[in-house]
């Protein structure tokens, strides 16, 4: 994992001092609310329904155990003892006091954390696949490149006041996409060209919100050394020509659409030609140096524990289910990737208490070299667990609430905070998630249904990624009452797609039944090997419509 040097430490401390000064001036009335707004947003501070909300950055989802313990302490000292993992691999606190935020940032800086650029119209946290570095089929570990992008984008003097927020995601495997790169402003797919050189395929102009779009490719191969100069060219074109007259048309996707992807690509290439060989061009040395931070932990030479696991599974059905669903193959023999699910029915998806944060820290130290990764599905990953300790781990985490064996199933719901917390909400989202989880509480049935992404947002801003859920649920306001619109067929993976709206919206109490009917259509119509999305793509929306509105 990346470790700060004296430069990073100095800038982190300077940033805290700066925000302390800004907060003082805001409280003294020297900065108007409007003037303070972008400054506090770029330090992670939103003002919300109940209190300010602080979004703490977890660069590309990586956390060390000491950082988890610090987060736990912060939620106790400054908040109500719990935190929320977001869909962009960050952490949110819901109740900090404005005047405490500089102190919180100082506490974070001590463990090499910050809240820089987690909100506001600037370059946000770069996200990636939570299995980076431990999966067998990746082109290369994307995290050194994510950290290179993090440093380049941090306090970038030219791009602190963009037309709108800007999100970059990097994906490293050509078979899977756990980073949802095609719904990001820039999605970088790592690839090798025919000569075997490493680079990126560049998607630009994806995004959700009011006008959901899947990002088209504007460059098939960008050599790795050119990463930053090319990003700078894209950002400069966007900064100069993105719309600023209408907040809802200000994302880069609108510009890409207006110019066409080809037209946009031409503008970027023309800009890039000027700066391609500027000092911002990466050096092989800089990349090597960064890779040095993301080396393998001291793995032991082990064999796969096939026989042991087979015996343990045979004797214990709960363990068997968990192993099949929440444990993934590791590139090293004898190791496994474990996802701790934060999706226990009755707990808002992604919420953890201070105690649970400390438990996760202890688990990381005991089982996974002291590190964890946050996923955009709002779960937490222990990436390096010995196979011969899986049973022991499962027994430990089950009472903690991390062992719900529903990963990637219908009840592994992505859900935004919605009307319970968010001032922009049209409707609550957490109670809908819970009602659906209660309705589908039979694990065997869930397993039979296979992989289904169910995503819920409380309004058009789409924090819960509803457009790219295989089943998407969106809170809408109908004459002051909370209703829910359903869409089908979305995907955030390699085959990314925006879901189609099923029809008129539903009352909250009807939602579990509506989902049940949709699932029934799938069960009736599927062929042996089809997942939900395959069946939907084959039969279309009509049969679902007919059943739900019958």
């Amino acid at each position, binding site marked *: 994992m990346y470790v700060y*040097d004296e*430069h990073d430490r*100095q*800038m982190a401390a*300077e*940033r805290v*001092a*700066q925000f302390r*000064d*800004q907060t003082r001036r805001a409280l003294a009335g*020297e*900065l108007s609310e409007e*003037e303070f707004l*972008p*400054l506090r947003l770029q330090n992670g501070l939103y003002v919300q329904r109940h209190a300010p909300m602080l979004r703490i950055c977890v660069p590309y989802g990586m956390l060390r155990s000491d950082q988890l313990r610090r987060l736990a302490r912060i939620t106790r000292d400054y908040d109500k003892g719990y935190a929320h993992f977001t869909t962009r691999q960050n952490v949110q606190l819901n109740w900090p006091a404005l005047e405490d935020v500089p102190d919180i940032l100082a506490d974070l800086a001590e463990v090499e954390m910050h809240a820089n650029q987690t909100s506001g*119209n600037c370059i946000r946290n770069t996200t990636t696949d939570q299995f980076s570095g431990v999966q067998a089929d990746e082109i290369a570990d994307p995290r050194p490149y994510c950290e*290179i992008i993090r*440093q*380049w984008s*941090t*306090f*970038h*003097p*030219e*791009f*602190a*006041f*963009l037309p709108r927020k800007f999100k970059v995601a990097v994906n490293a495997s050509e078979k899977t996409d756990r980073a949802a790169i095609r719904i990001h402003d820039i999605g970088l797919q790592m690839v090798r060209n025919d000569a075997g050189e490493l680079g990126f395929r560049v998607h630009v102009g994806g995004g959700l919100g009011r006008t959901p779009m899947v990002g088209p490719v504007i460059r098939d191969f960008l050599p790795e050394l050119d990463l930053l100069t090319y990003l700078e060219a894209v950002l*400069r074109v966007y*900064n*100069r020509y993105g719309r*600023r007259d209408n907040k809802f048309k200000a994302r880069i996707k609108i510009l890409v659409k207006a110019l066409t992807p080809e037209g946009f690509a031409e503008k970027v290439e023309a800009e890039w030609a*000027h700066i391609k060989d*500027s*000092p*911002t061009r*990466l*050096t092989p*040395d*800089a990349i090597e*140096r*960064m890779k040095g931070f993301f080396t393998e932990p001291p793995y032991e030479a082990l064999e796969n524990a096939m026989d042991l696991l087979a015996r343990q599974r045979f004797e214990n059905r709960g363990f068997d289910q968990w192993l099949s669903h929440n444990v993934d193959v590791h590139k090293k023999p004898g190791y496994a990737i474990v996802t701790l699910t934060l999706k226990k029915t009755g707990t808002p998806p992604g919420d953890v208490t201070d105690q649970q944060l400390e438990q996760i820290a202890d688990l990381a130290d005991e089982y996974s070299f002291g590190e964890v990764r946050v996923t955009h599905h709002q779960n937490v990953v222990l990436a390096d667990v010995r196979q011969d300790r899986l049973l022991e781990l499962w027994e430990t985490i089950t009472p903690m609430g991390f062992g719900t064996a529903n990963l990637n199933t219908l009840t592994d719901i992505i859900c935004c905070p919605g009307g319970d917390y968010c001032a922009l909400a049209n409707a609550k989202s957490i109670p809908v998630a819970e009602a659906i989880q209660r309705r589908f509480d039979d694990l065997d049935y869930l397993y039979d249904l296979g992989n289904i992404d169910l995503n819920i947002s409380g309004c058009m801003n789409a924090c819960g990624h509803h457009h790219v859920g295989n089943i998407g649920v969106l809170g809408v306001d109908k004459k002051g009452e909370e209703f829910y619109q359903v869409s089908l067929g979305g995907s955030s993976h390699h085959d990314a797609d925006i879901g189609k709206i099923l029809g008129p919206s539903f009352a909250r109490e009807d939602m579990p039944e509506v989902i049940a009917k949709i699932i029934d259509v799938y069960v009736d119509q599927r062929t042996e090997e089809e997942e939900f999305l395959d069946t939907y793509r084959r039969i279309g929306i009509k049969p679902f419509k007919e059943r739900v509105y019958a």
Partner: protein
Amino acid sequence: MPDVINADGTIRQDNWVVVPRPEEGESLAIPSDQPALIPADLWLAGYEHFAGNDQIGVWFDSHDEPEIIADRVNELPLIGVNFPRFVDGRGYSIARLLRERFGYRNELRAIGDVLLDQLQFMKRCGFDSYALRPDKDINHAATCLNFFSQGYQAATDTDLPLFRRRAG
């Protein structure tokens, strides 16, 4: 005379005025006794007349294209870039283009909705004077310009991004 801030945070008096773009049918109201910044396209349109006059500079609005005077920038003693609202970040790109692409060497001034907390970014993008909005505390400018002792990126102020300095 109004104050302007220098890149090092010191303050000096200066009497350059910004001449607004004239309404349809009206002509440029250039004062006779003070140096003036006029809209860049009008300077270009009246080039025969203005060339060589060291009392005339130009200003760009945030949606203007600095490319129009790319090969003549160093004929100008002063260029202003307007921030119509402080959240409009186009002026930062304009400044870098003027400095890094067109090689402008004379004074580059931020004008308009110029506030304290943006000065550091302006400085890194090549501005070397700042006409702070009059209601802001000019004595706090030096502090705001100097919160950071270094940056991660190359920009107008340095050719050495941190990754190159680390290698050295």
